[in-house]
């Protein structure tokens, strides 16, 4: 009896497992959680896939991890948001060429009670200084992601090193943007987030945007083809086609037309 069941399970699994590895062309894109969690990629990719028949498989992790995965060759295209790290990636020969794709901005989110009294300010560096002075809870990604790198740059400008206070008012979650927002929401902490993830985040609790609009909160996304000289298995033509599409008129228009609750989340700026 049991033997028959197991045999039946084998057959069922064997038969249905086959289509998973279908032979349709695909590329693997190493990208960041913000492009996925915001719903942008789910919105724009079907257009590209319908036009080209190329399936785009997105692995959404932090920028730091995405770049490391790409260095290992585990992706054909890199779509992330940390220009310095991207330029370094290309300079080191891991990527072919970097193109601007789109931008949005970071915002400082915090509890309505706003213990550091930063609400309405336009100066992000002054706001962070105020947070560190009153030692108000601050949740940091702490994961070498694009947002984390941006946050560390801002602390640098504020001439502060909050990691000295790690574990007290400064909490490094070591997790993605969404998980970090959940932590901040749970303990009423300040947190730096990209606007797209914030806009699509469903568990805001007592948090709201307190500081926005500082030019230093600019958040640029870039796209790079992984260098086939380093990893011959890179799917060059399909990957290049995706890049050309995304920085071309169709892709740029698709990015611009994505709105959540009436608000545009990403602004195309390919040259």
């Amino acid at each position, binding site marked *: 009896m049991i033997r028959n069941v197991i045999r039946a399970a084998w057959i069922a699994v064997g038969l249905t497992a086959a289509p998973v*590895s279908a032979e349709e062309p695909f590329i693997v894109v190493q990208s960041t959680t913000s492009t*996925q969690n915001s719903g942008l990629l789910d919105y724009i990719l079907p257009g590209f896939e319908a036009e080209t028949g190329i399936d785009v498989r997105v692995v959404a992790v932090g920028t730091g991890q995405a770049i490391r*995965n790409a260095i290992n060759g*585990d992706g054909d295209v890199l779509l992330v948001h940390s220009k310095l790290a991207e330029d370094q990636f290309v300079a080191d020969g891991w990527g072919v060429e970097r193109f601007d794709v789109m931008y949005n901005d970071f915002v400082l989110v915090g509890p309505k009670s706003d213990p550091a009294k930063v609400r309405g300010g336009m100066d992000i560096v002054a706001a962070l200084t105020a947070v560190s002075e009153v030692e108000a809870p601050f949740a940091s990604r702490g994961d070498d992601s694009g947002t984390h790198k941006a946050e560390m740059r801002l602390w640098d400008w504020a001439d502060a090193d909050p990691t000295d206070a790690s574990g007290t008012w400064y909490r490094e979650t070591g997790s993605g943007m969404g998980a970090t927002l959940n932590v901040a929401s749970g303990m009423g902490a300040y947190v730096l987030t990209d606007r797209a993830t914030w806009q699509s985040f469903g568990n805001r609790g007592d948090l709201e945007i307190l500081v926005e609009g500082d030019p230093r909160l600019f958040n640029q996304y870039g796209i790079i083809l992984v260098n086939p000289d380093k990893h011959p298995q890179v799917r060059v033509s399909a990957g290049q086609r995706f890049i050309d599409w995304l920085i071309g008129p169709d892709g740029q228009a698709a990015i611009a037309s994505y709105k959540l609750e009436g608000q545009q989340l990403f602004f195309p700026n390919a040259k």
Partner: protein
Amino acid sequence: MALILNGDAELWAIVLLSLKVSIFAVLISALIGMPVGAALAVARFPGRRVLIVLMNALMGFPPVVVGLLVYLMLSRSGPLGVLELLYTPTAMIIAQVVLVTPIIAALTRQVVEMLAEEYSEQLRSLGVSRLASVPVLLWDARLALVTALLAGFGRAIAEVGAVIIVGGNINHVTRVMTTTIALETSKGNLALALALGAILIGIAVAVNAMVSTLSLQAEREGLRHA
């Protein structure tokens, strides 16, 4: 919430993939783990105790570490990179096999060791060598071994740390129940994540109920034939 209430095709595809990956992983683990466990139960050789302790310890192998090891093997810059298995369901099955095999092997070892002691006189009088008795003992322990399979299945279907690393949580390719729950949690969609969790528990209950009914039936049939 609509995703669940409408019995969305996408949701069912995710459920199906979860089941497919975990069932496949458990079957492969059983093929490896049961003979190994049984052999360890009956064989006597130096270092056997150490192996048993090691195997028992591996039951607590952190999934994230397994995910990382399998990632390093399957990465294009890893030794098995040419196989292009990373970010496929096969990669997830491999990771789960690594996690589940020690559980099945350790539980099999325990069950078979008890049986072997019970039957040691008979087996010896029939002139059956220790290792040759393995298939007989496994067959005799089959009902108890179902529990080992279920324990393995429970570990596999509930696991997220390893499959999210080697599968990449790619929509329509490697997204399973647990990685969907992780994704929805990170989007702050806590109600949806909880609802998906409830479905996952429901599946686990259904599978356990089905298997226990089958083994009960088998037990009755066995009694009738005896």
